[in-house]
């Protein structure tokens, strides 16, 4: 009876998973490590930036502006009266920028056409920090200008820009890093673990033993995949619980939506793992291929850390076939924005399509022959 046979295969695979230490390692320990790494370790957040401040003539508005910089909670300021004293520090990386308020500032600020200028020098060897220096300096300047206008000293700006940050008002980077690392975890379990395990069976010859039985190809493949499917969903559940309770990531969507997205992603992930193991039949090569074609694209090309829109067009076309791209977009939406089915359905469709292609290729590579 095919039903009983299939059930027996499932039980066998599940027992094998529980017995295998590498499965437990990759399915339980690795997700925890990754989650903690991206939740606490990696931070793309705004932080306190060390800068130098050169005030060439400390009186009047110049002194006021200097005090505003020193009082800002984004800057840790080192004051000097000459820029040459700070240049060495900038080159050494001790400070990340220099703000120079020239001696002509007082005179220009009070004059009729009101064109006072001060200089912000940022260390461009770290572009991210340089951007922060520029933006914070602009922020301090705008705040100070608004204060001056309030006490009647300055001119009100013609257009007032009031930025609002939807979905993530505190701009906490872990709110998108933690859902993203869940995608990495699922890729690791779905692609790497499956590829390793099936390739191991090919290497050890137990696959040949299975082929000597009346078991069909479909039963064989499904019997391998379903336990790993369940394992990956279990890992995903663990990561979600940790994300919400420990890291405080808001969960504004519904759990069924999250489940639907994850299940749709596991299809291409598992299919890819199966295809790699069927094509290579060798544990080492399978792990290399899984890391190169599964993990690295999921990490670098999926929009997890690096924006897809900012990549060159050719690379953007390549990301279309990376299933993790659709998962990251959907995960970040389901956690931070809510249930937006107009976004989920096309992404789920794309993932299912890619999964179908992988499965067809894998089934064709796994012939019940030994050559």
């Amino acid at each position, binding site marked *: 009876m095919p039903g009983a046979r299939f059930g027996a295969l499932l039980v066998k695979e599940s027992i094998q998973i529980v017995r295998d230490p590498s499965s437990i390692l990759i399915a339980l320990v690795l997700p925890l490590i990754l989650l903690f790494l991206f939740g606490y370790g990696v931070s793309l957040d705004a932080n306190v930036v060390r800068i130098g401040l050169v005030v060439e003539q400390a009186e009047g508005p110049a002194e006021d502006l200097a005090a505003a910089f020193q009082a800002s909670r984004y800057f840790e300021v080192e004051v000097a009266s000459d820029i040459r004293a700070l240049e060495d520090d900038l080159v050494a990386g001790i400070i990340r920028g220099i703000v120079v308020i020239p001696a002509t500032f007082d005179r220009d600020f009070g004059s009729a056409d009101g064109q006072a200028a001060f200089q912000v020098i940022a260390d461009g060897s770290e572009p991210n920090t340089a951007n922060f220096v520029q933006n914070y300096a602009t922020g301090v300047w705008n705040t100070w200008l608004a204060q001056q206008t309030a006490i009647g000293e300055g001119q009100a700006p013609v257009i007032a820009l009031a930025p609002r940050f939807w979905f993530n008002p505190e701009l906490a980077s872990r709110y998108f890093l933690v859902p993203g690392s869940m995608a990495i975890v699922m890729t690791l379990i779905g692609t790497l673990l499956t590829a390793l395990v099936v390739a191991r069976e090919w290497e050890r010859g137990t696959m040949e033993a299975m082929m000597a039985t009346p078991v069909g190809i479909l039963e064989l493949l499904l019997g391998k995949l379903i336990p790993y499917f369940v394992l990956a969903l279990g890992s995903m559940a663990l990561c979600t619980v940790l994300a919400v309770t420990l890291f405080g990531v808001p969960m504004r969507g519904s759990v069924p939506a999250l489940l639907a997205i994850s299940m749709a992603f596991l299809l291409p992930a598992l299919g890819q793992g199966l295809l790699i193991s069927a094509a290579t039949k060798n544990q080492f090569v399978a792990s290399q291929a899984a890391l190169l074609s599964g993990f690295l694209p999921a990490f670098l090309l999926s929009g997890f850390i690096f924006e897809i*829109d900012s990549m060159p067009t050719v690379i953007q076309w390549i990301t279309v076939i990376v299933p993790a791209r659709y998962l990251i977009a959907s995960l970040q939406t389901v956690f931070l924005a809510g249930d937006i089915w107009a976004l989920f359905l096309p992404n789920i469709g794309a993932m299912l399509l890619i999964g179908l292609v992988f499965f067809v290729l894998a089934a064709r590579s796994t012939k019940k022959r030994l050559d």
Partner: protein
Amino acid sequence: MGGRLRALIRKELLAALRDPRSRMMLIMPPLLQLLVFSYAATLEVTNVSIGVLN
């Protein structure tokens, strides 16, 4: 010891480069990774799609 070591190194290199599959594994992935990922990994934000409400 030096001569033996050199002979072993030579043998390993020949063995690795003889097999077409390991030749490919040594040359293709680094090239691919260099080209694709160094273009992809950018912290700049450009081409942002925005909506304007008038």
